[in-house]
């Protein structure tokens, strides 16, 4: 099967042994490189063995391309070491920041969509791509606040980033849905605003809802449950628009048995293969 019709699963530590023992029929795996920034030990060896059997994608969470300050060179070097060792077919990062004053806040913090941020983010992508010697993908995040200083929409910002740098997109359908609900965006309009040819990977995941004391609520990208119906429908819509790309099921919290992830992956495969009109 061509890789862009393959569905993968985000691989987390509790499932390593199961995967090695059973070599389940799954298209590919994705891991966070930051979990492998060690000098040696069993985790790296397990990943060697996974790589012998499956294509691998490295999905970064800590490079902080959206920081105003310069990129952490040590982080880039460690990422490059992993790329050389595991030859991933995709390398991705987020449209976010996590570093200020040289200090790391471990979350995908939102970037304002301004000309200045576009310039800084583009420069950082250029630097990363030339240091790593390859193209990277940028993922749209789930966000919980919008900046009043933003002058572009998120799709406009992403399209412009890719145009300036040659980077491509990792489109997270759940994140589009979560951010759309949180900010009152139209998720279909978001999809239609993305340049089709830029999408090289798709993410699907579950989310949860947080209700505050004043009764207001936000959707939170917890990766803790099944992909919801509305996200499946949005995925079908993306496929109808022509966004056929390797798709990943992400599940990080309250991790179920691997078979549950397999079933989610099979569902996604159904959409990719049939390319059926399931929405609208």
């Amino acid at each position: 099967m061509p890789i862009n019709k393959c569905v993968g699963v985000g691989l987390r530590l509790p499932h390593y042994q199961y995967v090695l023992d059973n070599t389940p029929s799954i298209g590919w795996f994705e891991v966070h490189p930051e979990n492998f920034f060690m000098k040696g030990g069993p985790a790296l060896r397990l990943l060697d063995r996974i790589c012998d059997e499956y294509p691998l994608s490295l999905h970064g969470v800590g490079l902080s391309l959206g920081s105003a300050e310069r990129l952490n060179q040590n982080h880039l070097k460690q990422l490059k070491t992993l790329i050389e060792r595991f030859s991933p077919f995709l390398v991705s990062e987020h449209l976010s920041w996590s570093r200020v004053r040289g200090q790391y806040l471990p979350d995908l913090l939102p970037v304002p969509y301004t000309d200045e941020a576009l310039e800084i983010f583009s420069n950082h992508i250029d630097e990363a791509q030339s240091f790593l010697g390859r193209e990277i993908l940028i993922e749209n995040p789930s966000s919980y606040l919008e900046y009043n200083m933003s002058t572009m929409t998120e799709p406009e910002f992403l399209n412009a980033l890719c145009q300036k740098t040659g980077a491509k997109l990792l489109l997270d359908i759940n994140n589009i849905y979560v951010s759309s609900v949180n900010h009152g965006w139209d998720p279909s309009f978001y999809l239609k605003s993305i340049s089709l040819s830029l999408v090289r990977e798709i993410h699907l995941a579950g989310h949860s809802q947080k209700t505050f004391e004043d009764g207001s609520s936000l959707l939170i990208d917890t990766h803790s449950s099944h992909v919801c119906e509305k996200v499946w429908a949005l995925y079908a819509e993306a496929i109808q628009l022509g966004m056929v790309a390797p798709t990943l099921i992400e599940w990080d919290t309250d991790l179920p048995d691997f078979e549950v992830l397999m079933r989610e992956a099979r569902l996604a495969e159904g959409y990719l293969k049939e390319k059926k009109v399931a929405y609208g």
Partner: protein
Amino acid sequence: MVDLLTLQKAFLEAYEGKRSFKDFVKMNTVSHENRFSVYKGNVEGAFRKALEGTYPLTWKLIGQKCADGAAYAFIRAQKSYPQEGTLLNWGRGFPEFLKTFEATKTLSYLSDFAKLEYLMGESLCAEEKTPLIAKDLKNIPPHHYGRLVFIVHPSLFLFYSPYPLDQVVEVVEEKVPSVALENRGSYALIIRQEGQVKIHWLSKVEFTFFSSLLNGNSLGEILEKVGERKFNFQEILSFSLKNGVFSGYTFVAE
């Protein structure tokens, strides 16, 4: 319009509770405080999870609720954050903090136990090196033994505690249901063997021997320092070779 750096510094200050982030947030149905609180919760939650990842045995020993409480107090008391964009083995300062945290400060051995666990994490992730085996040493002429300096394996760490941590480990590993702690110290040699971290409990003399090795002393210097008759060198050598303690050797000048 503020620049990106100003905005990000303001974010950090708001995270630390030093200012409001209101001026930057587009206002609508959900308040800026609630919106910002999601990020604060995510950051603190990621730190907490990372600490539990670094100290799983400490979590098991004192229980999830108590450990989480200590973790959040530690996170909020931090004066600085990680410099690197990974939380692998993060939280080196946590064991010292446990000495001051109200719910754990009376558990005198706990801080040392957590320090031991931190070293276990370091050992697990240490550089790969092929350990020496007996055959690797057979061509060394006996009259050169005194000048021999063993290079210890990168996954080897030593730790002394005035508390009997071996007894605490037995409880955590559920080998015994509970234990009356003896009034003595313990000497640990931590090393990764076949992908797993093992702790070997040493005598004081053995501990001194390995400490000297770790400091780069030659065999001659160590025997002089420790006193040749206090331990069986053949025994300690075969223990070292069996457990992958050495990853190389060199000689000091004559």
